């Protein structure tokens, strides 16, 4: 057995044990009795699995909508974030003018402005993209900026004696050095992007997993709500994995660990 397989065994065992306990607790109505919840509101893992299968078409349609929002919103945030970081890095004036705004953007309570965004932009894609981009923008920008600044000042001196101008130093030293940092920011961002999408749909939408969860909850279909959560988690993990894979290919000079 490889060390990797063995390393994956422990968490798998914990998950299986937790599922078994949950299944038994739900079957014997332990939770329902303990917290005096109606027993049909506490779905067993088997019930959730059943919902996943029975509602597969519904879930797939809504997952597709959410995935599209996440990918577009994330791409928008990545493009803006990297551009913003480069501007701030190159110009002291831009840094002084924009950096406080960048930090301020993170103090905006999304919960408060999401309904306003819905009022402004309607039930469509617009407000979801705005919410996702607003959440993702910050980690990408801050990490990329740190990466651009991480370049050894001795390296910059050396490049200058080789005749490099400001833009060449950016292209040949600073941008490649910033790549691993930008990927770290992007991985944080993509995980929260899924939360942002669900939130946007929760506040106002007529499709997407967030919308599905709202309607299922209203109908007391708790197993379906859990099924939607499972799909969302899988989506976030898959996107994270995809980015990690891309990172390993692009940042190939980093020693493998």
């Amino acid at each position, binding site marked *: 057995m490889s060390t990797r397989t063995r390393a994956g065994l422990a968490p798998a065992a914990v998950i299986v044990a937790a599922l078994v306990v949950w299944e038994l607790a739900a079957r014997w109505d332990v939770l329902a009795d303990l917290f005096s919840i109606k027993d049909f509101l506490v779905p067993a893992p088997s019930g959730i699995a059943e919902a996943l299968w029975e509602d597969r078409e519904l879930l797939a349609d809504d997952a597709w909508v959410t995935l599209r929002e996440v990918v577009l919103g994330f791409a928008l945030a990545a493009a803006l974030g990297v551009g913003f970081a480069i501007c701030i890095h190159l110009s002291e004036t831009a840094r002084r003018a924009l950096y406080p705004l960048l930090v301020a953007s993170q103090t905006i309570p999304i919960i408060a402005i999401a309904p306003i965004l819905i009022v402004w932009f309607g039930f469509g894609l617009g407000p979801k993209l705005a919410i996702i981009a607003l959440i993702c923008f910050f980690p990408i920008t801050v990490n990329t900026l740190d990466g651009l600044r991480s370049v050894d000042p*001795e390296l910059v001196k*050396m490049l200058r*004696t080789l005749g490099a101008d400001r833009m060449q130093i950016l292209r*040949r030293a600073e941008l490649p050095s910033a790549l691993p940092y930008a990927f770290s920011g992007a991985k944080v961002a993509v995980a929260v992007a899924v939360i942002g999408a669900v939130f946007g749909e929760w506040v106002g939408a007529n499709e997407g997993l967030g919308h599905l969860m709202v309607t299922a909850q209203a109908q007391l279909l708790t197993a379906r709500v859990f099924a939607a959560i499972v799909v969302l988690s899988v989506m976030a993990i898959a996107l994270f994995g995809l980015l990690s894979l891309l990172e390993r290919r692009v940042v190939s*000079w980093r020693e493998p660990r």
Partner: protein
Amino acid sequence: MLTKSGAPITRTPTSSRSDPAAGTPRGAVELRGAGHSFGDLRALERIDLSVPAAGVLGIVGPSGCGKSTLLEVIAGLLEPSDGTVAIGIATAAEERLAHCALMPQRDLLLPWLSALDNAALAPSIAGASRADARERARPHFRRLGLGGFEATRPAELSGGMRQRVAFLRTLMAGKPVLLLDEPFASLDAITRAEMQAWLAGVLAGDEHAVVLVTHDVEEALYLSDRVAVMTPRPGRIAAMLEVPSPRRVDRAAAVTSPEFVALRERALRALAGEAR
């Protein structure tokens, strides 16, 4: 092709840039009463130095004596607070920068480029296509004992090989003045001795004016025509030693000869502040 294999790299203006060396046939370095201060800290005091083209000047001194500052002043990365610095007829910082190539203490190879692309950085920055830049670096790669490692990433090279690539990168800048800042300080003693013999071979018959900064007295005396001994706070030249027969092929014989040992003693006494 620049040169046939085996010939030293000569100053070659790169095609897309006007030749900054035009009108300055030789890259002689002249410092007259040069000093530098960082605020209240006096880093360099009244430095007089001259390095003829094709000459090698060694500068030895303890850590913190201003050796690296001196190199940066020569290179045009810093302006002297007083006195003058000239390379040929160039005195302005930007002009000096156009005449000097600096090899830093750490190799600072770009980890995402192959060894060959690292060596070919200067022509590439000057606007040569990637293929063209590689073709220019390739023959020198073999001459410097790097053949077969063209596609290797820096992380997979040994310390000595990395310094060779860094040296070639400096050479490929095609500048008349080479400034070497403790080039072998990060290597173990055995590899360092090998690299000194290697550099002696490379510099033999070379046209560059070379300033070699080191804290290793033996290295300076073996590789240089003249050695300036610096003392710290403020950085001053305490003694100037002429080396009668530098860069001999047999390094072990050279550094154990009586005259070398005597020179070494003089240098060490000057470093200790006993200059007469």
